């Protein structure tokens, strides 16, 4: 073992002049700084998207409420969806990937550091462009206006007739630009994972996190391309007189749906695979056992990657496809459940026989496991096309995908924050605040999204700024809105913890969790050059081998 083993000093980060620091961050090509900027940027938009959700929940707290106008409400759900998918989930996951992948494979940096910086800045620009629509959306027609076409922007609502001014152009351009950034980073991740691994790290010894990020990046190539093509066609429709989606001139609204969802559904897996990746690192460390069935986990991830490319039309069961078409997409969608099930069982088997430490990262991981299980099962319900004819576009769907995105992805992200924050900042997050955050968020999450299933079963339609009194949806909506408030408070606790612990947290040292992958062999935060000497690995858990020379993994793999 040639990993760095010298005792690592616990150092206070030095303080420099603000402009020098700023210049440093803006011009950096260091994967760690870019990763942190991705994460910080995503957190900023998480707060913005969260405020949008809160405003909507205030509007929906009672029937026939007049807190928001229909226009403002429609803009809010469009911005909330677009923000959370393109400017929170994608950047935060790319941020963790950027930060962790070179460290986990023993590399100095990503394969293309300048491309990395370019990808980040173009994605960042895209987010601000989207919000600039509030000022410039209506162009010369008067005041501003954000897009109000929904985050799928179904044709022909986006045509000039139904969407005058420039608000939907801001949507189109910002999504297009963020796609360019995503493809750049995905390319970087694939190149890094394939060609930058340290000596001894075969693909078969590569940490699962890196494997899953590689699969996710491959999916980004396949899914972002049709989205970009569709955005360009839409721009042609709006400005150069083409008629791809212009139904009044013979264009096809259904064509847009196909283009959007062949991006949109695999996108869900693009977001969930990195989250599985976090779980694959966190669950073993806090169960004190190696991941159960590493080859099966890799195979399941690749399987999910492939199958998920053929399920997109399950978003379109109600558009009047033929019975044969519907049946095919039912089968394809249900089939994704099999590799996903394998993952859950393997996590279960990893816990089984271990010694589970319920540190903050593991608490959130446990929340993830149960909530993702439930979300997967409501997904199976939605894959049953006739059931979907009832549930599609109801609040049941809203509940389902928030179970995936909040209950699954966000919980797992919180776990990742508690797990890797010490590595990134050199300080531990406060455990007491972490418990407050976890329990408040858990309660808030369930108070919000559990009743949403029921109000959907009762026939409440999504994307409505209000609802009639006689339907009886009022009481559940009050509960849902209260839950949203609890989640907001919990998020504030988390943000406070991030800031507070940066200055006051206990020093972490290089390996606070007694973990096994290479990033824990370097100081916290890692130096710019990452590894003082290029490491060599002989198994999937190099630090386990180091800590247990009497029983190394190399004997079993």
């Amino acid at each position: 073992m040639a990993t760095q083993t010298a005792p690592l000093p616990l150092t206070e980060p030095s303080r420099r002049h603000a402009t020098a620091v700023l210049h440093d961050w803006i011009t950096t090509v260091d994967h760690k700084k870019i990763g942190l900027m991705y994460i910080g940027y995503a957190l900023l938009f998480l707060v913005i998207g969260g405020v949008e959700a809160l405003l909507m929940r205030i509007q929906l707290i009672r029937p026939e409420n007049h807190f928001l106008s229909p226009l403002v409400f429609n803009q809010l759900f469009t911005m909330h969806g677009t923000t959370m998918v393109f400017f929170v989930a994608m950047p935060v996951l790319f941020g963790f990937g950027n930060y962790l992948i070179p460290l986990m494979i023993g590399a100095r940096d990503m394969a293309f550091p300048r491309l990395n910086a370019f990808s980040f800045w173009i994605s960042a620009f895209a987010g601000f462009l989207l919000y600039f629509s509030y000022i410039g959306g209506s162009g010369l027609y008067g005041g501003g206006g954000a897009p109000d076409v929904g985050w799928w922007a179904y044709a022909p609502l986006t045509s000039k007739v139904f969407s005058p001014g420039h608000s939907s152009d801001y949507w189109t351009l910002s999504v297009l630009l963020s796609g360019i950034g995503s493809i750049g980073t995905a390319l970087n991740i694939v190149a890094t994972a394939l060609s930058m691994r340290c000596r001894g790290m075969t693909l078969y010894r590569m940490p699962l996190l890196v494997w899953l990020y590689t699969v996710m990046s491959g999916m980004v190539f396949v899914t972002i391309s049709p989205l970009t093509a569709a955005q360009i066609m839409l721009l042609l429709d709006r400005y150069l007189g083409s008629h791809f989606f212009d139904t009044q001139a013979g264009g096809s609204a259904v064509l847009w749906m196909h283009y959007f969802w062949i991006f949109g559904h695999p996108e869900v897996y693009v977001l969930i695979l990195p989250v599985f990746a976090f779980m694959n690192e966190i669950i073993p460390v806090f169960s004190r056992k190696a991941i159960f069935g590493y080859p099966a986990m890799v195979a399941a991830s690749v399987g999910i990657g492939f199958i998920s490319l053929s399920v997109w039309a399950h978003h379109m069961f109600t558009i009047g496809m033929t019975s044969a078409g519907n049946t095919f997409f039912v089968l394809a969608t249900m089939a994704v459940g099999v590799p996903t099930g394998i993952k859950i069982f393997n996590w279960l088997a990893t816990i089984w026989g271990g010694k589970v430490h319920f540190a903050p990262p593991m608490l959130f991981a446990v929340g993830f496991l149960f909530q993702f299980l439930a979300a997967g099962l409501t997904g199976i319900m939605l894959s049953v096309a006739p059931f979907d004819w009832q549930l599609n576009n109801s609040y049941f769907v809203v509940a389902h995908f928030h179970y995936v995105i909040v209950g699954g992805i966000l919980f797992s992200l919180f776990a990742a924050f508690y797990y890797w924050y010490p590595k990134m900042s050199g300080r531990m997050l406060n455990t007491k605040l972490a418990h407050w955050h976890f329990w408040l968020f858990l309660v808030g999450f369930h108070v919000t999204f559990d009743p949403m299933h029921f109000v959907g079963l009762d026939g409440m339609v999504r994307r409505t700024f209000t609802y009639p009194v006689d339907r009886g949806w009022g009481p559940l909506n009050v509960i849902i809105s209260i839950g949203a408030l609890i989640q907001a408070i919990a998020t504030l606790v988390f943000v406070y913890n991030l800031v507070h612990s940066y200055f006051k947290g206990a020093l972490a040292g290089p390996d606070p969790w007694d973990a096994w992958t290479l990033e824990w062999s370097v100081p916290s935060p890692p130096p710019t050059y990452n590894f003082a000497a290029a490491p060599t690995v002989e198994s999937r858990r190099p630090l386990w081998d180091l800590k247990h020379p009497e029983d190394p993994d190399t004997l079993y793999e």
Partner: protein
Amino acid sequence: MPPGTIISSTSSPHMLSAFAGFVLPPGSTSIFNPAGTPAHSIFSLSMLVLSITGGVFVVVGGLLLYALLRYRHRAKDPDSNEEPQQIYGSTQIELSWTVIPILIVVLLFLATARIIFATQDAPKPQNALDVTVVGHQFWWEFRYPKFGVVTANELHIPASDPQARTPVYLSMISADTDHSFWVPRLAGKTDVIPNRVNTMWIDADAPGLYLGQCAQYCGLEHAKMLLRVYAQTPTDFAAWVAHQQQPALEDPSVADGRAVFEHTACISCHTVRGTVATGTFGPDLTHFASRDTFASGSVPLTRQSLHEFIADPGSVKPGVLMPPMHLNDHDLDLVTDYLMTLK
């Protein structure tokens, strides 16, 4: 049962709603309270799916919970500082938990495929009634080609006879953007898409009022694009059709209001059969006052509410495409009175 009467909500099962501790309100649109053939078959399928997924949740969730509690780290155990035995995998175990989900998927898939084909490819009976549904921003137009009747927002259908079903076949087109026709107690939804004809069929178990609404975001006032389906006994339905086929009633007492109506831009968008009003952009008003509601089911029809609507449609239904007509108070009263006579 006269139209407008809400069917008793105890006539069908609604386990989940009851389970959630809520009594169904009068305007219930619960999918677990089915009242038509497609809704019933979806309900039975959903019960199968719910029991299987529920079972999976209990078993897998239970195992997870057990593992987390049983294998938690205990500080007072003598070996608490030692690492547990490392296990790297087991082909047999992994194979078994791959095969079991596959079997469950096959079962669910076959049950689903059966209902898809039974609903979508059901042969159309001879006695089926055809209705053309046109989705507009933000209201519904219903045309009965066989009867020459056109109405808006309130769809009248004959209730189905359990012995000989009389389904209603809907041919759906859109005048502008995407919409979706959803009356949860009768059937699943079908999107209404411009430049495309979609079809679906519904039938109602019993006479009564079934509520629904547009389920595809269609623009500013999507939230208030409501739907009302009145299922009537065959006799009542025949009477309704006969009445709707008549030209508009002429009431000499509102001749002044009719004159105002016919001399303003009202007639460029609205039709009142038997008069010069032949516009087709807005709802047909021939028997306007025979409806319970207007503004796409979002406002109960009273003289007062209609008066407010005509004065400033956007204040009652923001986003409505009808502009304020700027009538003076006198003309406004006259037109309102005239429309209220169009029974």
